[in-house]
Each structure stands twice: as structure tokens, then as C-alpha cells.
């Protein structure tokens, strides 16, 4: 039962994280460079513009789900298993999602990076 709870929580973390990352990335690209915007209009404008973007709020909701799912997973198993397992699956999931939903040009270099990092994170759990 412990394994079932752990892996269900990890799956929830991965799904929520990937959805959240894609939505947040979409929202930030839509707003533009936050550093430039802050220099031109000030911090309050940046905060207002970010908080009024629907994709950001949806992404934030997904991240909240991912956070509480992570807390559940951490309460059922060690961080040395839960952290790397969720992170490595999220890396690969994000590469696929960014290509499909954000139309990013995920070239061979970025695929290699995603798989190297995912593999490396898994080895850290050994």
C-alpha cells in the first residue's frame, strides 16, 4: 500500500508539474522579458501584469497541486527516492510537452540534455 501511495503521488507530481511548467512558460513568453518591463514600468506593473494573466494563474494552480502531491509523497517515502523519481520523469515529460504545446525547437542537443539530466537524477537516488 505504501508503494501504491508513493507512486500515485509521484505520478500526480509529474502531471501537475509538467502542466504547470508549460502554462507558466506560455504566460511569461506572452508578457515578455520581466527585467526589461520592470526597468520601463516598475515592479508594480510587472506584478499586476503577471497576476492578471490567466495562464499564469492556471499554472500556479497546477504548481500548488504538485506541491501538495510532493508533500504526500515525502510523507510516505524518502526524499532520496521521491525527489529524483519525480524530477527525472518531469524533465522528460517537459521536453515532450514543450515541443507539442509551446512549439519549442527541441533539437538533439536539448533532448540529450533532458535525458542526461533525467538519468543523472535517477543515479543520485541509487
Amino acid at each position: 500500500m505504501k508503494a501504491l501511495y508513493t507512486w500515485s503521488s509521484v505520478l500526480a507530481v509529474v502531471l501537475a508539474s509538467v502542466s504547470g511548467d508549460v502554462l507558466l512558460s506560455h504566460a511569461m513568453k506572452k508578457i515578455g522579458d520581466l527585467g526589461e518591463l520592470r526597468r520601463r514600468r516598475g515592479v508594480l506593473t510587472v506584478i499586476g501584469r503577471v497576476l492578471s494573466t490567466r495562464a499564469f494563474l492556471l499554472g500556479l494552480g497546477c504548481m500548488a497541486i504538485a506541491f501538495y502531491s510532493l508533500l504526500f509523497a515525502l510523507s510516505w517515502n524518502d526524499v532520496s527516492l521521491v525527489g529524483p523519481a519525480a524530477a527525472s520523469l518531469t524533465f522528460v515529460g517537459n521536453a515532450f510537452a514543450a515541443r507539442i504545446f509551446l512549439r519549442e525547437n527541441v533539437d538533439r542537443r536539448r533532448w540529450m540534455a533532458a535525458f542526461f539530466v533525467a538519468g543523472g537524477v535517477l543515479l543520485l537516488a541509487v
Partner: protein
Amino acid sequence: MNLRKYLVLGGVTIFSAIGDTLLSRGMKQVGSLSLGHVFQVLLTILNPWVALGILFLLAFFACYMTALSWADLTYVLPATSLGYVLLAVIAKYQLHEQITTARWLGILLITMGVGFVAGGPELTHHHVHRPTGDSRATPDPHPHATIEDIRETVSTRTGS
């Protein structure tokens, strides 16, 4: 990439590693959670370690949002994965854990992954900036062009 952008990526890496470590410590004190006790789940944020971890994760979030505003998701994530290496270093020197050969190999793989993306462009296609709220989709004339390609095209057209 300028110094400010490197600092933002460094902030993502460091704040995330420290935040995760603090959360882990807090959750060890809180103990196992169950779906039947929603209030118990919500009250976990009152634990000082969890609360401090959340503060660091908020700082991580601010840096992460800034990075995503000028770089691709598939660039930011691997580029900031050195946080896992930092976690291993904290485990070795702060918690006196043994770093096995497999873990050193993992650290090597992550570093290589970071090297792969760090050498490439941070943005691979042109994003048209438009005021917030205007979500009308317009076709991207350069769906796979890098920002360098676009700059080169512009400078060729303007003759500069």
C-alpha cells in the same frame, strides 16, 4: 547571456536546492499525511522548517518566472539542474552522507546535460510581445529560428 541572466539562473538553482532540503526536514517532523485529514495537510505550513522552505521556494519561483520570460522551458530546466548536484554536496558535507560511485556518475551526467544546453541559444523561436489580454494567435513566421537568426536577418535587412 549577460551577468544578470546568469544570476537569475543561479538563483533558481540555489533557492530550489535549499528550499527542498528545508521542506524535507520539516516533513520528517510532521510525519505521514493522509487524504482523510485535509486540515492536517493544510496545517503543515505552520511547521517552521516547512514555512522557511516555502520562503526559499517563493524566491526560487520569482527567479524561475524571470528566467522563463526570456528563455525556453527546455533551456531553463536543464540549465538549472545543478541544484541536484548542490543537494548531493549538502548531503555529503552537512549531513555526512556517503556519496557512492553511482552518485558521482549521476553528478557527471547532470553536469554534461547542463553543458549541452548552456552552449546553445536560450530562446529558439521568436515570441511576439503583445499587451496582456490579447490572446489572438498570429502565425509565427520563424517557428524554428533562433534569436541569433532573427537578429542576423534584421541586421541584414537594415544594413547595419
